[in-house]
């Protein structure tokens, strides 16, 4: 009843996805059984239109694990394994493996996600606490003045505060089932958000890939969210992901049992280490030739390249802790 060839071709033309025969077979059989059941109940016999067939299969497709359902379509450089180019129209059919807000600290994201959840689930409005300032202590960066009340709307200062997730720039890690590619939102794309479900399916069209990095630049027209929310990723809410990255769940009480002078020492020690590392880096880049920085950047990128292969959830945490270790 399901026209495997016809559905496959239509889906490829519409979404760029190349369906695996085995998966399509399982999916089609499942749908046929369902339909048969309905037909008997409805008492009639009609052929199902191709459009409807495509829709039914697509519904299953978006909720599937992409490595099961599709053939990989990304083209990579032979040597570096970095993405080389994206397929032409309709584009690359990819699965969202992670969505991270990179313009805001994870801590601030975690607080915002927690407040939003508290508000939605328990009706507790967020209280006004002082704004977190993500400033550089050594002063080498330009210190942005804390927006404080200047940035707040009248509604916020005189009435109730809204629970909002901060929004600056998203970085997605997309996969075709076999390889991963990072994508950066270089200009704001309204349909994306940090709360996008992990495992959703997207179609990326004509995105520019930055030379030597394999990172895709996303602009307003280059990504289309198809949908889907596979159940195996349901636990990975924004709040849960941030808490995990920050290692927050066990940290709080461990800290609380230390006495305050020990905590002070810990904080000071960490700061000293970071300072000395920054001083070393600054000294190294005193002669600011493009070559020196490229070298550093190259080592960083291979580290990133390595991590792209592993498919575990701990990915982000590993990278982050490795970076923190490097800084220590």
């Amino acid at each position: 009843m399901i026209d495997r060839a016809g559905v496959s071709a239509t889906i490829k033309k519409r979404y760029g996805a190349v369906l695996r025969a085995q998966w399509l077979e399982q999916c089609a059989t499942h749908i046929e059984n369902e339909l048969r059941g309905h037909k008997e109940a409805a008492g009639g016999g009609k052929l199902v239109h191709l459009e409807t067939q495509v829709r039914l299969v697509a519904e299953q497709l978006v909720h599937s694990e992409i490595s099961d359902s599709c053939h990989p379509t990304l083209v990579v450089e032979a040597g570096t394994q970095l993405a080389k180019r994206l397929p032409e129209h309709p584009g690359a059919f990819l699965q969202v493996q992670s969505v991270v807000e990179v313009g805001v600290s994870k801590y601030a994201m975690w607080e915002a996600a927690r407040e939003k959840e508290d508000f939605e689930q328990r009706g507790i409005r967020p209280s006004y606490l002082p704004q977190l300032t993500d400033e550089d202590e050594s002063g080498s960066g330009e210190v942005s003045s804390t927006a404080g009340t200047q940035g707040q709307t009248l509604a916020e200062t005189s009435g109730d505060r809204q629970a909002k997730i901060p929004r600056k720039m998203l970085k997605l890690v997309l996969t075709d089932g076999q390889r991963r590619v990072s994508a950066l939102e270089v200009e704001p794309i309204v349909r994306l958000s940090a709360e996008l479900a992990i495992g959703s399916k997207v179609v990326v069209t004509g995105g520019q890939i930055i030379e030597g990095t394999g990172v895709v630049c996303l602009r307003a027209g280059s990504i289309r969210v198809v949908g889907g929310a596979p159940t195996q990723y349901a636990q990975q809410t924004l709040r849960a992901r941030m808490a995990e990255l920050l290692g927050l769940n066990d940290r709080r009480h461990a800290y609380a049992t230390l006495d305050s002078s020990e905590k002070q020492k810990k904080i000071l020690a960490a700061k000293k280490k970071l300072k000395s590392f920054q001083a070393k880096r600054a000294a190294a880049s005193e002669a600011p030739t493009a070559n020196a920085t490229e070298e550093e950047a190259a080592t960083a990128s291979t580290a990133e390249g390595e991590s792209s292969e592993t498919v575990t959830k701990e990915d982000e945490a590993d990278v982050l802790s490795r970076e923190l270790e490097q800084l220590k």
Partner: protein
Amino acid sequence: MRILCVAEKPSQAKAVAQILSQGSLSTREGQSRYNKNFDFQYRISGHFVSVTMTSVSGHLTEVDFPATCRSWHSCNPVALFTSPVVRAVTENGKDIAKSIERESRSATHLYIWTDCDREGEGIGGEIASVSRSANPRIIVKRAHFSSVLPQEIHTAMQNPRDLDMRLVAAVEARTELDLRIGSALTRFQTLRLSSRFASLHDKLISYGPCQFPTLGFVVDQFLRVESFVPEPFWYIYLEHTKDDGRAVFTWKRSKLFDQEAVFALYAKCMAAPMARVTSMRSRPKEKWRPLPLTTVDLQKCCSRYLRLAPDLIMSIAEGLYNQGFISYPRTETDQFDTNMDLKGIVTKLIQYAPFSAYANGLVNEEGFKWPRKGNNNDKAHPPIHPVAPANNLSGNPLRVYEFVTRRFLACCSDNAKGQATEIEVQVTDEQFSASGLMVLKRNYLDIYPFDRWSESSVPVYRQGESFEPSVLEMRTGTTTVPKLLTDSDLIDIMDKNGIGTDATHADHIKKIIDREYIYRSPDKFLAPSTLGIGLIEGYDAMGLELSLSKPHLRCEMERELKRICDGAKTKDDVVRESVNLYKAVYVKSVEEVAKLEESLGRCLQQAPDTGSAIWTPSSGNGAGGTE
């Protein structure tokens, strides 16, 4: 016609009587040692009337529970939510009340001269009821004034209003609610926890509907600091050195917390590392003078710049007000009424030696500008401002007076003016900007050193010009751990979350310090004690949607009290609804007390005692109130 005037404090009675009598008054002892009577003649509508001015010392009456519930062990605390309450004259007030009754018998009119805020109106209501009990036919009026200035006092005396019974109702509602809720929870907490933890044996572990949320803010910030994880970030740094100087450009994206992302964008820039000037603008820029001064702002600024504790600031400000140097210090208004003679006040300040030259400049050299208008107006008092030059002050009162005066003069000055240069530059698709500032006229900054405006120079660029950056590299930084709250921060948070009023913020902070829930470190940061943390975490663990430690309950109650003042709701309705709400929360807290104990045990590092001496709500002596 004979008028009895009653002020809120003895010192105020004397000051007002001096003004009204123009110096010729006679003093007479009253029933109370501290509250004397001042007799004089006053001219109203052509003829003289006899006036006696006396005072109370704050609230005259108080609410309490009847004898059956008064003692801590006499009943189950839950009964306190529904038990009747009685309003009676305070112990200290007995003599004062007798005095008022006596004077009322021979008076035809009663003029209330208490402070013109909600509490003052409430005290006025108490005075009126005491007075009426002795003389039911006395006519009650209310004098309205914002500063102890002769002109205002005379106007107030000649144009008395009626007592606003809605404000009186709001104060009665608040005192009743604070009594019920505070008593029930304080008894429960103290009796239970002191019987379970040896170190809390003789401590009073009080609960107040404003105190706890205030403590909650301090604890929340502390936990934020403790659980903070520093995060590295990266950004693109662009610098260009020219003959006429060096420009440091800021990346439009500021910074990103992902090294791969920044590196990718940096690599894009490095593919064609030429910067193109997309815009170069020079335009005038102004730094705005401050808004007129409210109580919250007074406390924030004086605690931050003068490093004084909020309760000290308020008592100094009250002293200055009673001496006639500044206007009423409890106000939310940040706009001056157009009828006020502000220029006249500035002229008076020419007599104040340190600011004489500046004030002179404002008045006689066309420097005066009408102050900015804020968004708030409590319709009761103007913003805090000086009313007379105070040439004999010293120490902290002098510092506070000077702050108020500097602020006022700054409000009446012009904005500071400068010229800003803004350059925008693009490298491939990434945008950067740099700016310079030249201060042309300091204006208000000359009298208000608390604001800073620093100059910076930047070289000249032409629109469309291209250059090769001297430095174009990726740099890194790390987020810094947030700080604990200062007094200033805490008052700001309380204000934004609707906890307490401008009159009470400082009191709540003082109270939680007295109870040893928090302490002030030598460098003026507020940190919670282990007891404070244990209590807050314990109540939070109960998972109450309307937790006792979060501000929502109190914020809602303050809103309801405001509705009584606006006549939108009756006192009985508000009291009944709030009582039901808090009672439900209380009952839940009793059920889940184990969580509170577990949290305290962890924070105090003690295991709760077991044994027969544990207190439970039903260990009270029976009788008294329904469940």
